[in-house]
C-alpha cells in the first residue's frame, strides 16, 4: 500500500517536472543524487571525474526533462544520461588524456577508504584496471541488472558486442582474481 502510494507520488512528481515545475525536478534530482553519484564513482573509479559527471548529468537532465517520456524510472533515465556522457567523454581523445592518470585517481579512492578504516579489496582494483568499455557493461548488467537491449542502446553498440564484452570481462576478472 505504502509502495503504491510512493509510486503514485513519484509519478505525479515526474509529470510535474516534465511540465516544467522546477521544485518537482529538484526533488527528483535530490532523491536520486546518491544513486547517481555512487554509480558514476563505480563506473569512472575516479572521484573528481565522478563529481564532474554527476553535475553534467544533472544539467543535461534539466535541459532535457521536457523530452522524458515516463517510460522508465527517473533513476534509469539519469543513469542512461550519465552513461552516455561518460562514454562520450572517454571517446574524446583530449579529455581521455586529461583523465589518463587513472592510477592516481584509484589511489585517491583507496586513501578515502583507508580514512574510513575500510578494507580496499583486490577485486575492486581488478575492476578499476579494466578498460572502461568493459567495466561499464559489467556494472550495468551484473550490479544494476539492466537488460542487454538497454545497455546496447546506451553504449551505442550491438547486443552481441555487449554479450561478448561481458563474457570476456568476467573471464578476465576470474583470471586476475584467481592468480
Amino acid at each position, binding site marked *: 500500500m505504502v509502495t503504491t502510494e510512493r509510486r503514485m507520488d513519484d509519478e505525479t512528481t515526474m509529470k510535474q517536472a516534465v511540465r516544467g515545475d522546477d521544485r518537482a525536478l529538484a526533488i527528483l534530482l535530490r532523491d536520486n*543524487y546518491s*544513486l547517481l553519484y555512487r554509480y558514476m564513482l563505480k563506473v569512472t573509479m575516479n572521484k573528481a571525474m565522478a563529481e564532474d559527471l554527476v553535475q553534467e548529468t544533472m544539467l543535461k537532465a534539466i535541459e532535457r526533462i521536457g523530452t522524458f517520456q515516463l517510460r522508465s524510472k527517473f533513476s534509469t533515465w539519469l543513469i542512461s544520461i550519465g552513461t552516455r556522457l561518460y562514454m562520450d567523454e572517454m571517446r574524446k581523445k583530449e579529455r581521455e588524456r586529461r583523465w589518463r592518470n587513472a592510477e592516481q585517481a584509484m589511489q585517491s579512492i583507496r586513501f578515502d577508504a583507508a580514512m574510513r578504516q575500510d578494507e580496499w579489496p583486490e577485486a575492486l582494483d581488478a575492476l578499476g584496471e579494466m578498460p572502461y568499455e568493459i567495466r561499464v557493461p559489467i556494472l550495468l548488467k551484473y*550490479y544494476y541488472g539492466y537488460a542487454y537491449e538497454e545497455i546496447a542502446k546506451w553504449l551505442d553498440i550491438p547486443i552481441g558486442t555487449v554479450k561478448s564484452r561481458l563474457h570476456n570481462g568476467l573471464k578476465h576478472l576470474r583470471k586476475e582474481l584467481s592468480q
Partner: protein
Amino acid sequence: MRRKNHHDGPKNKRDMETESPIEGSSSEEWEAEQFEQLVGRHLKQWDDSVTPEIPSIQSLEQLAGDQRDRLRGRLWRDLLLFWVVSGMILSGLVLLVQRDLKLFIIVQVVVLMAACLFVVSPVVRREGRGKWTN
C-alpha cells in the same frame, strides 16, 4: 535501485576458475553468480560506505532555474544569429540574381545537392535517435 542482488561471498578458487557450463539463459545466470562471487559483495560494501553530500532542494531548484534561464538566453542568441546569417545570405543571393543569373542557378543546384547529401547521410539519421527520451 539495484534490481538484482545476491550476496554470497567467493566460495573457493576452483569455483572462480570454472568455465561457463551451459549455453543461453542459464549461462547468463551463471555469469551473474560468478560476478557476485568475485566483485558483487565488495562493490556493495563500497557503495554502502560512500555517503555523498546531497545538495538541498533549494539549491537544486536554483540550479534548475538558472540552467533554464541560460538555455533560454542561448536560444535567443542562436535565433538572432540565425536571422542575421539568413539576412546576409538572402542579400547575397539577391545581388547575385541581379548580376549573373547563370551563376545564381549553379550556386542553387550545388547547395541543393549538398543539402540532399546531408539529409540522407547515415550520421545525421543516427544522431539523437531517441537519445534522451526514455
